[in-house]
């Protein structure tokens, strides 16, 4: 018999209590894992934004447009490689619950600036030629069972009217961090209709996307762009795409912060649960610890025994939790809209965090029972009546 066996036997003394504790830990690990996955998925989305892209928007708010005439002026700034632009079109496709980005873009240049959207040359050329055509992401095509040549009918809301687009291209996301749920069509098509129906709104652009040759110059170029339109009636604010993404998702960011916080609160709560179990166990065994001390077992043996049991239970709970976490995250990935979290994976860092949290839970939970077992004098241990 080795100490290991005693640890094992001790942990099975109250089978129901141990079972419930392990269950509690595994549920906590699953919850922790999901929250962490959401947090990492969000950061991955921000990280996916290219460092060599600047976004120029209206200084007051993203919702105000910029004149089309800015395009030429921005393009002339040294260090600017390519300029393209987009309008948030939105509209209702099928019904209001079908949410994915629908943008009016400069057809000629948009894919140049977004090389992570992979479209075949053929499809791209056809798209560029046909004014009422569009490109959709592979995920959208799959979700709505759309093929090249299909008609997409969208009911306008920001831009009223019935809009029809022919799908001329389906883009594939270049990597896992690329959003595969976009839909793009010709800004010209939109603008022509506006010139006819509401000329006051024509000639406006939602925001400019600028590709620069040297990402290190992003601050400098941003300042130059904004200086160009200073004191005009549409001042601009230019920042890197990353900063823009973070700002755009500011409200999400608060939720992410809360989730981040919650994930560690869960760990704290489960520490108390296991801590409580261990304290109860150690209390019941006061007499046995006194016996073991009498037999000559020392502090290090008792520490090994109690710590061992605590870590054994927490790792078992952690293991079960991890085992459940994989399919649960997989399931979540299926139901979460792709455009919220283009990548929703159980990252190695999450697994490492979950395992080390379980280990930490085991260690921390044993502190009080160990302290108690070591402090109790043998004679008091024998006189103890639980």
């Amino acid at each position, binding site marked *: *018999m*080795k100490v290991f066996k*005693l640890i094992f*036997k001790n942990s099975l003394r109250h089978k129901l209590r141990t079972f419930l504790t392990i269950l509690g830990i595994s549920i906590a690990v699953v919850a922790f894992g999901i929250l962490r996955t959401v947090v990492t998925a969000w950061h991955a989305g921000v990280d996916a934004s290219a460092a060599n892209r600047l976004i120029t928007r209206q200084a007051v708010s993203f919702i105000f447009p910029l004149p089309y005439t800015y395009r030429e002026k921005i393009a002339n700034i040294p260090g600017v490689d390519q300029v393209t632009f987009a309008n948030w079109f939105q509209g209702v496709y099928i019904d209001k619950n079908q949410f994915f980005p629908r943008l009016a873009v400069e057809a000629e240049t948009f894919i140049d600036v977004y090389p992570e959207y992979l479209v075949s040359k053929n499809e791209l050329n056809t798209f560029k030629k046909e004014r009422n055509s569009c490109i959709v992401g592979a995920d959208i095509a799959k979700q709505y069972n759309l093929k090249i040549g299909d008609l997409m009918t969208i009911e306008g809301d920001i831009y009223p009217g019935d809009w029809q687009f022919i799908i001329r291209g389906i883009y594939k996301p270049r990597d896992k961090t690329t959003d595969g749920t976009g839909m793009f069509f010709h800004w010209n098509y939109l603008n022509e209709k506006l010139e006819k129906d509401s000329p006051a709104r024509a000639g406006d652009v939602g925001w400019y996307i600028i590709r620069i040759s040297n990402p290190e110059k992003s601050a400098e170029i941003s300042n130059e762009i904004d200086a160009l339109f200073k004191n005009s009636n549409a001042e601009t604010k230019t920042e890197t795409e990353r900063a823009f993404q973070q700002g755009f998702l500011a409200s999400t960011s608060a939720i992410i912060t809360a989730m981040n916080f919650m994930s560690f609160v869960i760990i704290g709560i489960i520490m108390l649960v296991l801590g409580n179990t261990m304290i109860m166990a150690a209390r019941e065994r006061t007499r046995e610890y006194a016996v*073991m001390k009498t*037999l*000559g077992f020392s*502090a290090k043996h008792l520490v090994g025994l109690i710590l061992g049991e605590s870590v054994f239970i927490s790792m078992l709970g952690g293991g079960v939790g991890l085992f459940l976490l994989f399919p649960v995250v997989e399931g979540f990935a299926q139901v979460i809209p792709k455009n919220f979290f283009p990548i929703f994976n159980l990252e190695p860092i999450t697994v490492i965090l979950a395992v080390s949290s379980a280990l930490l839970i085991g260690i921390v939970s044993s502190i009080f029972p160990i302290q108690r077992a070591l402090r109790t004098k043998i*004679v008091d241990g024998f006189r103890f009546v639980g």
Partner: protein
Amino acid sequence: MPSIIRIQDVSKSYTRDSFEIPVLNNITLNIEEGEFLALMGPSGSGKTTLLNLIAGIDKPDSGKVIIADTEISALNESALAKWRANNVGFIFQFYNLIPVLTAYENVELPLLLTHLNKAERRKHVETALEIVGLKDRMAHYPKQLSGGQEQRVAIARAIVTDPLIIVGDEPTGDLDKNSAEEILTLMERLNKEFKKTVLIVTHDPHAADRAHRTRYIDKGDLVEAL
């Protein structure tokens, strides 16, 4: 022949709710090697306390406890633990077996602190269980044994390391007459056959009859008779 246990002018008190309760007052007592001594006295007189001092699980406030040339009252916590493991076999009134371990594993427990390998441990455990007549109950858990059998397992655990002295705090206190007889016979045998120095605390005059000598404690003082 020098005494194996020498208690010199030992005093001990406990503090409870900041009151100091004197338990032992300047006790001096010598016990010879190979002796079987019984300690008797009223409840609360300090018998267990004295036994604990001799067994090295508590320390006197003043005075010395010397056992076979070791002044155990001067040892620190960990040295004392080592000393106990090598020199004392302890038998309790309520057996104090570990409930999740079998009879075999309970007896093996003190041997885990030695350098013996598995096979050597097995030999020792089987010998000890043979002496107490429970070799056929090795695989039983404490709750599957009678009180008398549990106490015999506890005795096997106390002797398995071949200690210098064996102390028992009311080892028959929780047993019926027949079981008590068995236990006392066993302790007598440890004393006679295995030449162990045995010290028991008891309330039972029959038990004390088995001893060579009986000493009495009354309100913390050693007295010749009550």
